[in-house]
């Protein structure tokens, strides 16, 4: 039983990070109907920039409490990532509106390769360790252990998600976003500046990506130029699992995927009599995804089928 609880907790931590990144994918998809393949790289830059800022501060002998240092790092990383997201939209997506559907996919992949290479130029090919400034105290809870940091990660993710959902539901910007996602042309007639709404979507999504990147870096204590790939793919899977384009779906999908993955990794050895080990964790996630989509082709909470191949 305690193993079960432990896996659930682990899954919750990873899952809430997935959810945060998945929101970035799903927001862009909801508005433009496109997969932003460069989003994983935004997450990676968020982690890298934060680590650089913190290391520089620590190196300069600034003695602030750990969490404050992370916040300072975040305050620099978020605008940086927002700028990257804004640029991605300007370069890769805006000129190709109305182009064949796969064209923006290729530009996004091109940008994603370029961003990875820029990261190598700046930070090199090695793993960058997270400076040891955070407290990794373990709290034991019903036989399962969780660090304070992980509790903060979960809480912060939930807070941000609630904030985002409230913004989309209640504010004027949110209403404009929903209008644009339903019908850009009509939204434009109603006085919504569609271009700036799309930019805003990319900027907000990238900001969330930056926060998620920092969380990944703190949780695993390291960052790497290639980290955006796998986590981006998982988050995208999560977004599809929940029904892409649906914000609540992204949150559910992310958390569900995290939990499924860690339960799968924990129990797959027992289930298959030791034939398959926890190295099949990723397979588990994808198999579940495929199964869900076979029985509910539009995702768990999705309503309409994406039909623009």
């Amino acid at each position, binding site marked *: 039983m305690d193993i079960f609880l432990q896996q659930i907790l682990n899954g919750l931590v990873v899952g809430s990070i997935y959810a945060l990144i998945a929101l970035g994918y799903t927001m862009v998809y909801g508005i433009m109907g496109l997969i932003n393949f460069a989003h994983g790289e935004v997450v990676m830059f968020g982690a890298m920039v934060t680590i650089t800022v913190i290391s520089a501060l620590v190196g300069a002998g600034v003695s602030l409490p750990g969490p404050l240092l992370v916040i300072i790092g975040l305050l620099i990383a978020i605008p940086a990532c927002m700028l990257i997201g804004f640029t991605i939209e300007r370069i890769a997506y805006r000129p190709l509106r*109305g182009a064949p559907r796969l064209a923006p996919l290729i*530009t996004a992949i*091109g940008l994603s390769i370029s961003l990875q290479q*820029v990261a190598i130029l700046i930070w090199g090919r090695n793993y960058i360790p997270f400076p040891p400034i955070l407290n990794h105290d373990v709290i034991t809870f019903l036989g399962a252990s969780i660090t304070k940091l992980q509790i903060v990660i979960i809480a912060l993710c939930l807070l941000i998600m609630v904030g985002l959902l409230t913004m989309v539901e209640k504010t004027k910007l949110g209403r404009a976003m929903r209008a644009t996602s339903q019908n850009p042309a009509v939204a434009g007639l109603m006085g919504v500046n569609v271009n700036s709404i799309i930019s805003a979507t990319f900027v907000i999504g990238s900001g969330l990506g930056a926060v998620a990147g920092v969380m990944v870096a703190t949780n695993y204590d390291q960052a790497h130029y290639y980290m955006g790939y796998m986590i981006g793919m998982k988050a995208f899977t999560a977004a599809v699992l929940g029904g892409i384009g649906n914000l609540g779906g992204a949150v559910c999908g992310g958390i569900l995927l995290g939990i499924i993955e860690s339960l799968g990794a924990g129990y797959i050895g027992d289930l298959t009599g030791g034939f398959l080990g926890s190295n099949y964790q990723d397979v588990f996630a994808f198999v579940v995804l495929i199964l869900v989509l076979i029985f509910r082709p539009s995702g768990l909470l999705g309503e309409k089928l994406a039909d623009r191949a």
Partner: protein
Amino acid sequence: MTNSTLRGKLGIYLVSAFLLAAQPFLVGGFLGNSWVRIIDFALLYIMLALGLNIVVGFAGLLDMGYIAFYAVGAYTYGLLSSPQFGLHLPFYITIPLGAVCAACFGLLLGTPVLRLKGDYLAIVTLGFGEIIRIFMNNLNQPVNITNGPQGVNLIDPIHLGGLTLGKTMEIGSLSLPVVYLHYYLFLALSVLVVILATRLQRSRIGRAWVALREDDIAAAAMGINIRNIKLLAFALGALSGGIAGGLFASFQGFISPESFGLMESIMILAMVVLGGMGHIPGVVLGAVVLTIAPEILRDTIGPMQMSTFGRMIVDPENARQLLFGLALVVMMLVRPAGMWPSKRRALEFSDAKAKARAQKG
């Protein structure tokens, strides 16, 4: 067609056939055999890109895990024709077997995703590709099948009786190195794939695929069996990938899961899209350009930096990838319908553009 244009066409065919036949000697003579090797790979990628083109270009099904079929073909050849299991089956069994296996995997993937469309299909195929790769990476325990991340080594070259493509062949005074021999084999097969793809496109099946791509409901109303035609697209696309995979394994002599990552799938997709989706000459052009361009960059970036700055400022490998990424972006922005789109697609696109302009203005 008048007599003179017919003769002109024949002339063009003859000249290009001669150039293709002489290519390894020209390229090998002027640039060295490493470039012939790169051209060999370009031919493999032509087969792959044409296979994917059936699925993505003709039938309009976005497949992002295409490399899995290449992997299945390569591993079938590699496992049955190497010291891994001590089996050394001849190529005329392993390559067709690999192709059939790949086609079966195509059906395996195609059957559950029949109802999926667009991006959902993309993500499921992507997941499928990853699943295959993860299995290849981990099937070395408890029973060692694929030898895990180390991959399969010492794979037999293609050989028949005393004839082998694995070492230099002497015909009279003519000496043909390994890369030349493979060039001719791959060229013959690529031409075969081009011809088959062209014939398919113009056949009843090809027209059914286009109908499916444009509007599946209308296609069904016209009496096309959507299920069968989709599965056929997956299976035939996979078949071509499987053949290319077997050739890759025999040519390289070594395979590991690393060669079959998502990035490879994306590269092949980029060849199809960048060349001109659904247009066979365009796809061939895309495959050649995307195989050769990075190699040209590899050869020029280092020396260029040395001559302009007198030292290496940026790691050449790094700069090469960066330029490649940016080139993908720029090429797509300049020609969103691909470098060499079919007339029909080019028209569709200029139509869409005009509409967008009308909306804006």
